[in-house]
């Protein structure tokens, strides 16, 4: 009798628990109220909220709050007008005149005019933080009339392209432009973009609200609110999209993408990306200062396995330093293949004794594909007798170690992804190959005057003689490949998962990770 009573009570409790669970689900956001787009993002939505300073994830938020003079259009592959209606330059690309759009309002009510443009860009140039270097060519900014602004350059540069940069090219309201970074980091912002800031929690989430006076106007089926929130685990982001709670996410693991492709309520969106994964050799440390030894390491890397089996086709094999789709990329460049015999030959040629040799590999923790890639590489190198020690660390620590003043205390190999600041190959050449006084991103520590000269010349030519510049860019890559400064692991594809009702999104490789929510709508 007692047992039966016990059973009955148990069933009652169980029932209550189950009912409780489903009860929680039914309290969903009521329909027909505000339409919310929720972007589950892999990392912190921003690092610095100052649009002149931010040189990291923050562009995914800032591009919805602020706008730039021009924008790279993924459909046409050209630079299209945004806050500037049209622009001209003189013959040799040293004077650029932009005509600014009229009747554009900032979130704080101020009007956009030439003065605001001048002040915004001068603020970024004066602060010299983040990607401010893109304006290095600018000598003077002149306000010609209320809606015309003229840039005088000290050397030729493609300023229309630079003005479309993902970083450091935002136009800020005249009321905010004199404020310091601290003011912005309190969660304040004033741009011309379609969304204004509603709530900011640093390191966690950003909530944006529709800006009613936006100059391009609004349609009924656009989103009223945008939530960008940090969800670091791939499986959690996948579940959010599967349940329909999040509208869009990216950076999913290959296994999660594969599972989502089967799901009819989720769209997997693929697009070009200008991100590639590069391995940097510490060329200032023995035995990696030996080019033959580096070639041996390049031949031991599992290129095809990474692309076919780890990325499962969601990547391309890299050819050269510049990813496909950007000018300067050349499919005919020599590329290292996985060939352990050749690796063995070069190892012999280098005279390096692999016995007891330990190489330290560092990369940012959390990316499953990189971890698997490193482990495959470890297996291959073991066959050459070299022990690879894999160190997964936070990006801060990886970077800190790579900038150590003593070359012996730095890592041996570092894997990192790189994407351009604006749609140009110069970002790779200047940041990764050109010699640096203080180490920033030239993490192979290349110091080659010949290469420096070629890069500088290519940069000058890029505004006026694109074909000649392209030739030089290819020459630089030939030299870099010959010296085996890098492991060119793979060019990434940009893969997103979005709710089936979330329309109008197309990944734009010039703005990595950015969703221009104004372009999206629900169905």
């Amino acid at each position, binding site marked *: 009798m007692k047992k039966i009573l016990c059973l009955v009570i148990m069933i009652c409790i169980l029932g209550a628990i189950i009912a409780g669970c489903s009860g929680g689900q039914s309290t969903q956001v009521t329909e027909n109220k505000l339409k919310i787009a929720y972007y589950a993002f892999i990392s912190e939505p921003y690092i610095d909220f100052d649009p002149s300073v931010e040189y990291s994830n923050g562009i995914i938020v800032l591009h919805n709050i602020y706008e730039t003079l021009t924008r790279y259009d993924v459909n046409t592959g050209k630079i299209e007008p945004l806050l500037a209606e049209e622009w001209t330059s003189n013959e040799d690309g040293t004077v650029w005149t932009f005509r600014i759009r009229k009747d554009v309002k900032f979130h704080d009510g101020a009007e956009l005019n030439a003065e605001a443009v001048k002040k915004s860009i001068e603020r970024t140039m004066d602060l010299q933080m983040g990607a401010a270097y893109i304006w290095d060519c600018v000598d003077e900014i002149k306000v010609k009339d209320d809606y015309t602004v003229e840039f005088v350059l000290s050397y030729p540069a493609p300023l229309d392209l630079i003005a479309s940069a993902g970083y450091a090219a935002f136009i800020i309201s005249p009321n905010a432009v004199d404020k310091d970074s601290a003011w912005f980091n309190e969660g304040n912002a004033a741009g011309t973009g379609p969304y204004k800031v509603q709530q900011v929690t640093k390191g966690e989430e950003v909530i944006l609200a529709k800006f009613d006076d936006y100059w391009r106007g609004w349609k009924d089926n656009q989103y009223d609110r945008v939530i960008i929130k940090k969800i670091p685990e791939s*499986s959690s982001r996948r579940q959010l999209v599967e349940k329909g709670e999040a509208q869009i996410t990216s950076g999913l693991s290959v296994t999660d993408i594969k599972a989502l492709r089967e799901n009819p309520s989720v769209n997997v969106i693929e697009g070009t990306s200008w991100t590639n994964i590069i391995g940097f050799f510490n060329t200032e440390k023995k035995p990696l200062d030996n080019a033959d030894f580096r070639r041996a390491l390049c031949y031991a890397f599992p290129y095809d396995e990474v692309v076919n089996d780890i990325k499962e086709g969601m990547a391309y094999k890299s050819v050269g330093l510049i990813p496909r789709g950007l000018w300067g990329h050349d499919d005919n460049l020599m590329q290292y293949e996985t060939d352990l015999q050749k690796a063995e030959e070069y190892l012999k040629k280098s005279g390096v004794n692999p016995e007891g040799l330990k190489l330290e590999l560092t990369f940012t923790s959390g990316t499953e594909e990189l971890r698997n890639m490193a*482990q*495959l590489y470890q*297996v291959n190198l073991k*066959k050459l007798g070299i022990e690879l*020690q894999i160190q997964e660390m936070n990006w801060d620590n990886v970077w800190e170690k790579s900038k150590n003043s003593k070359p012996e205390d730095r890592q041996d190999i570092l894997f990192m992804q790189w994407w351009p600041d604006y749609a140009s190959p110069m970002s790779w050449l200047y940041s990764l190959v050109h010699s640096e006084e203080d180490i920033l991103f030239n993490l192979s520590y290349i110091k080659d005057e010949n290469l420096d000269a070629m890069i500088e010349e290519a940069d000058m030519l890029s505004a006026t003689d694109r074909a000649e510049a392209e030739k030089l860019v290819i020459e630089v890559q030939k030299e870099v490949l010959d010296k085996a400064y890098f492991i060119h692991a793979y060019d990434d594809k940009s893969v997103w998962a979005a709710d089936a009702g979330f329309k109008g999104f197309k990944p734009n490789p010039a703005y990595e990770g950015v969703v221009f929510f104004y372009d999206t709508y629900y169905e």
Partner: protein
Amino acid sequence: MDSRIYNLMEIIRPRVKEVGFSFYLLKKNKLTLAAFYVIVALFVLAILAPYIVPYPSHISDEANVANKLLPPSGEYLFGTDELGRDIFSRVIYGIRISLTTAILAVGLAIIIGVPLGAIAGTIGGWVDEVIMRITDIFLSFPPLLLAIAIVSIVGSSLNNAIIAIALSWWPWYTRLVRGQAVSLKERKFIQAAEAIGTSKWKIIFSHVVPNTISPVIVQASMDMGGVILTIASLSFLGLGAQAPTPEWGLMINTSRNYFLNAWWYSIFPGLAIFITVLAFNLLGDGFREIMDPKTRKR
């Protein structure tokens, strides 16, 4: 018969009897006996691992990504992991790693802890005060937290994890042995040794330490489970074993990314930890009962 050998026999004979009696008690306690057999089996598997696993090369020399994340089948008993390696082979090899690291860690803790406890208990006075206050400081940290702190300072590797665990575990032995030593000090044979002028050190190491062995063994066998769990936890947090070591905690950590699609990847290393830790805990409990004079009389 040489008198020394005779003496030795005198010492050994009752011990042998004791062991025989203990084994008799062990046999009576079914659960402990089962745990004992499981542990014996684990040791056998660990020793024979290279000969019995189907894919010994999958431990660190080979990867075959084309076969990644295959479900359990005749070919791969426990399925394969993200690099196409046989999980069965790796789990079996994992026994080796878990057992050796646990034995090393506990052994190291005993080597540090027992002499300190014996010295503190026998000598007493300010020596006792100093040693016991230091132990108190170590005891005030939760063992896992202390181990994490130590590993974060010295860098993450399996060896450092062993050292870190030993450093956070020794105070328990010091305390245990000190208690024993204090009560032994009052016993006639120690007082007799003192009376004939035996040096302190000789008393500590030939009279006190041997007589504290049985509680230490009980404590050690109970700790094994906890230590295995701690090593797995450290590896899970990325602070212990590093890839490609087939350590259970590390395997579970990697498997998290695939859990929704490949249940087998986390389940089998998890089961391995579960069975091993449970067996050691049951054995430890059983040992305590057997060695406790109160239960013996019954």
